[in-house]
């Protein structure tokens, strides 16, 4: 049977349209790739590579978002301030899970699609941190590193000054990258140090840049080859191998070339009871330097020992010894910059809430960080403990044997951060601690106590950022005896020690109501825009940046957000509500996202950050 058209013209038109649509559908069907378009359509890729000591090429590959850069160009001549975030790729499978089961009629099982892909590259994210900018909070470049993947990006230096190289550590790769940031938002690779160039230590942690542009880096783990290792100063230390003990301080030139390696261990070893090692060493040592800051004017370097960085589960029944976490701070004579000489090893003391049955949470445990005062009249330094949850201070780091006392317990700040917190500072999981350039304030980030950390009924605590007023303390004098006030009772641990001891000036919660989800790291914004149109360094920072990630393997993961906080001249702080994620619109830049300028690599783990300005925009 055949229908003949009464209106031949109309039928022809319909036929043509039908055929055209069918053809279009066929072409679309065959060419359909099944993948969604990346959120970043126009990305300019610029690669800079260097040959490392192993003869292989290492590179940084910039992925500049043309749209955002064009917006910035149109917005006028306001120079840019950048937030650089050193972040690691997370397994892509986590991202795929959320994308697969998403249509009615789908089977929800992923149909063999949820598989691990090759790991994506780690990267430095360049985020616009210029207040008022139309691209404020946008990731305008991801500078990926290669060929190594799964570096576990960790720390950079604490603060960046004009002309400085960026030193960035790779925890698992035991490598240090050096970046040129003079032409931001684009980066160049100046060099990379491989584990074979730092045989005296392993597992790089943090960096301190000297005025000549070189840097000291702490290598927390032991000499890479077990057994004796001879250093350039003629000393020999017996180490228990890669990621073990004792660690060292490495000095790098601006291209990450190793200038010297200096042992952190003492010839006679450290306290046998307080310093455990696995495998055991003939001379026990706590020398696993993590935090590092220097006072060049005092020719003194301070490092804090955190932990033997291996995750050792050799005994299926016993917990690892709490004494694998260190209670020690070391001072070094750096009169000869290329040969730092270990001067003292100080043992922090337990405080009033220490329980002998639970040495892990005693105030002295796991001295992750240290920070020095800055003004010429001050010679003090602070140290903080991660599991101990306390802040210590010595008034004179140049002393032969510096005397450290507890000056603040994290428990005192808990309720200022979040009213529903209790006032127990134990296991506050504090990370970043930093004096303000004018020595008036002390900035501190704590992740908060995880639920159940101190017992089955422990609700945990909300983490965040707090600011201490330290003016009276740092001006009290160079001797411990000059300082009024002590943290010597549990009440003082919860309410402050009085006298010259620090008081809370400001506090802000991150992820309020969620225990243990606060930030691990932070940086202050040391730049202000002058009337001359250039950025200048300031001694009164107006912003802080913090990141919510530690190390996924430790279980202390965060929600992978980076937040900015506004900082008042009185020390009060508040989360910047304008620093929002460009995709979710929520406060804080979320590193758990599908798309990056370098591709759809999914979630990333932001460990540390710095405020940086391009050479052309700073005076």
């Amino acid at each position, binding site marked *: 049977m055949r229908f003949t058209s009464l209106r031949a013209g109309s039928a022809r038109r319909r036929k043509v349209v039908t055929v055209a649509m069918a053809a279009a559908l066929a072409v679309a069907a065959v060419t*359909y790739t099944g993948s969604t378009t990346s959120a970043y359509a126009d990305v300019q890729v610029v690669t800079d590579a260097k040959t490392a000591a192993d003869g292989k090429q290492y590179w940084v590959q910039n992925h500049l978002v043309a749209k955002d850069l064009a917006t910035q160009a149109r917005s006028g001549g306001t120079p840019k301030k950048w937030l650089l975030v050193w972040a690691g790729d997370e397994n892509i499978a986590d991202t795929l899970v959320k994308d697969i089961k*998403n249509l*009615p009629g789908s089977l929800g099982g992923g149909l063999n699609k949820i598989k691990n892909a090759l790991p994506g590259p780690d990267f430095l994210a360049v985020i616009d941190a210029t207040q008022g900018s139309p691209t404020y909070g946008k990731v305008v470049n991801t500078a990926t590193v290669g060929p190594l993947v799964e570096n576990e990006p960790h720390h950079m230096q604490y603060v960046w000054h004009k002309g400085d190289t960026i030193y960035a550590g790779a925890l698992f790769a035991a490598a240090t990258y050096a970046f040129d940031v003079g032409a931001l938002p684009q980066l160049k690779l100046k060099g990379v140090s491989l584990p074979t160039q730092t045989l005296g230590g392993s597992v790089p942690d943090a960096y301190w840049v000297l005025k000549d542009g070189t840097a000291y880096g702490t290598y927390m783990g032991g000499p890479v080859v077990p057994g004796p290792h001879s250093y350039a100063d003629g000393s020999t230390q017996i180490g228990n191998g890669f990621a073990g003990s004792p660690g060292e301080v490495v000095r790098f030139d601006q291209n990450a070339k190793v200038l010297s390696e200096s042992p952190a261990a003492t010839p006679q070893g450290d306290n046998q009871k307080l310093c455990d090692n696995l495998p055991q060493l003939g001379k026990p040592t706590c020398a696993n330097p993590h935090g590092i800051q220097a006072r060049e004017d005092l020719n003194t370097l301070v490092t804090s020992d955190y932990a033997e960085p291996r995750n050792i589960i050799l005994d299926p029944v016993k917990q690892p010894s709490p004494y694998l976490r260190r209670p020690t701070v070391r001072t070094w004579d750096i009169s000869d910059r290329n040969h730092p000489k270990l001067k003292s090893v100080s043992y922090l003391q337990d405080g009033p809430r220490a329980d002998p049955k639970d040495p892990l949470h005693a105030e002295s445990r796991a001295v992750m960080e240290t920070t020095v005062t800055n003004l010429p009249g001050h010679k003090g330094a602070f140290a903080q403990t991660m599991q101990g949850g306390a802040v210590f201070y010595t008034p004179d780091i140049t002393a032969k044997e510096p005397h450290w006392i507890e000056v603040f317990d994290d428990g005192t700040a808990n309720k200022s951060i979040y009213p529903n917190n209790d006032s127990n500072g134990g296991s506050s999981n504090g990370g970043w601690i930093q004096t303000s350039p004018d020595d008036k304030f002390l900035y501190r980030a704590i992740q908060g106590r995880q639920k159940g950390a101190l017992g089955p009924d422990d609700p945990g605590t909300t983490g965040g950022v707090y600011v201490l007023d330290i003016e009276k303390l740092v001006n009290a004098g160079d001797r411990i005896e000059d300082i009024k006030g002590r943290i010597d009772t549990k009440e003082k641990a919860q309410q402050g020690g009085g006298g010259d001891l620090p008081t809370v000036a400001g506090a802000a919660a991150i992820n309020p109501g969620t225990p243990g989800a606060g930030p691990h790291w932070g940086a202050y914004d040391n730049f202000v825009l002058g009337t001359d149109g250039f950025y200048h360094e300031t001694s009164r920072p107006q912003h802080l940046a913090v990141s919510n990630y530690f190390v996924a393997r430790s279980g202390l993961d965060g929600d992978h957000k980076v937040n900015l906080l506004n900082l008042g001249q009185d020390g009060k702080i508040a989360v910047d509500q304008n620093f929002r994620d460009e995709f979710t619109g929520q406060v804080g830049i979320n590193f758990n996202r599908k798309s990056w300028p370098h591709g759809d690599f999914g979630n990333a783990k932001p460990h540390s950050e710095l405020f940086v300005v391009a050479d052309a925009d700073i005076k």
Partner: protein
Amino acid sequence: MDHHVAPATGSSGVDTAALLLRLVLLLSSAFLAGTGVLRPLVDRLPRRLLIVVGVLGAVSAVSAVVSAFVVDLTALATAVHIVLAAAIPVLVRWPSWGRWASIALIALVVLETSLGRSGVDFAVDTVYVVGAALWFGVTVLSTAVPADRWRSTAFRLGPLALTIGALLAVAGAVQLVQSGLGLDRRLYETLFGVALLVIVALPVAVSVFAGIFLGDKDWGRIYRFGAAGIAVGFLAWSALAAIPRPPALPVPGVPLLADAVAGGARIPVLLSPQRPGRNLVHFPASAGDDLSAGVPGGLITKAVARPGAEGSWAEVELPPGRGEIVIVKGGNETRVDVDAGEDTGPSIVDADAPECASAALGGVIAGRRDVLTACPADALSPEDSGALVKLVEFLAGRKPSAVTLIGDESPRGVAAAKLVRDTAARTGLAVRDDGGPDTALLVVSGWAGGYTAMSRAAESQRLKPTHQYGLYLAPWLLNGPIVNAVASSSLPLRFDPREQLAVSYAVAVGNSFGGESPTLGGFRSWLGDQSRSANGDVQIFSAAQVNAMPMYPNEPHAPGMVMNRDYAGQWVPDGTIVPISAVLR
């Protein structure tokens, strides 16, 4: 903050309710959309047809609503589906509007059918869905509307039936070819094969039927009779994604990699060497520890851990020829086809059998189907021999008081021990059997011996300074359980486990076999002929579980602090491995 390791899920994991929901939703939507698209071809619709269309719309919309509770759906797509399904029964009163809504629904059904597929797969999905929907549409309309109430059109519905049938048959044939199934017994012995046959055969039968009745004046009869065949084909097509794809046919002597399903759980299985007599059945650690294996009617033995190897292992005694092995997980049983053939397999020492199986797994994952004739422990390879010489020379330079050597009775172990002793003698390095504070431990045994040696060394090192010059392993001992038995160990390797080729293999073996860790033997088999060219100069590498926070995985006072194995492609589970020496020349 959810950073769990997502297991590689497969079609076999799809539950029946979700499948039934999918079939109801897709079939009702295809009937509804096909009817709506062709609605302009007829005049006013009879009341009973309006009811039919309303019922189809309701079934489709309700299925979408129920899906939202069963499967985690995109809210927008679900809403669009519900709105279209509800709107078409209303819009059929306005043919043009109804047609466009129906076209949109067809497009959505194509996407729902083809979720996650691309290229040719997506193209054939499109053809099958569109073709079937049109067929359903003509069927519904021709059943309810007499031929004299059809509007005049250029469409020739008789030949159109032949065209649709042929297109569906071609799409089915392409699907058959794309499936990877050959023309073998899997086509009629497995559900997947039968579904493929249905997908091809029914459209062919319908096409033949349409051809025979092409000249028939009642063209509606072609559609009405053919609709059943097309509908069954469409259901088979929609269900295909949920039916476990049968593994390749077992080949005697080629270790068998298969996916078994027991109690709803997918269990990767490796059978090696697949020869008459004693064989090993291996399960990855992710499959659990309540597994057993055996042959039907024979002894079922519990799969247990073996020193130095990941996962669990069970011995089975295979008879010659084709047969099955029984896999038991908990109280659930499943079977896997095997073919041991008639020839005897290679002689494999029990202690070295896991390493041999792991090596074979690499080749199987790479798609090679080589008959297993030899194991790594049968001989010391030239590349490993050279690496050991370099290692001993390196150790001599470190000047330990002696090297404590651990070997075994395998041909490789004997040759390696002799080589170490000869090289040590040449370089002035003492070799002894016991350890001391200033010795270095060097292990050249197989996996079992290596694991025992490392465990003992770890215990000694916990009590007092022992082997302070380090723990060294032969290259073939780079395997998670062995290197993670100690705080840190070192190996001479000719490749960098952090580079792309090595990481690619590590990801591949993890994906193919339940997250299993890579091994050197597996890497070499995976590389095949490339293996030699991938060999570089020797460097010493050190492995350790770097964490920056030594925590016990189940530390009671910090329940959130559990370790995540979320680093794909790592050669050392929960750890890292880095070069610690320059190239040794």
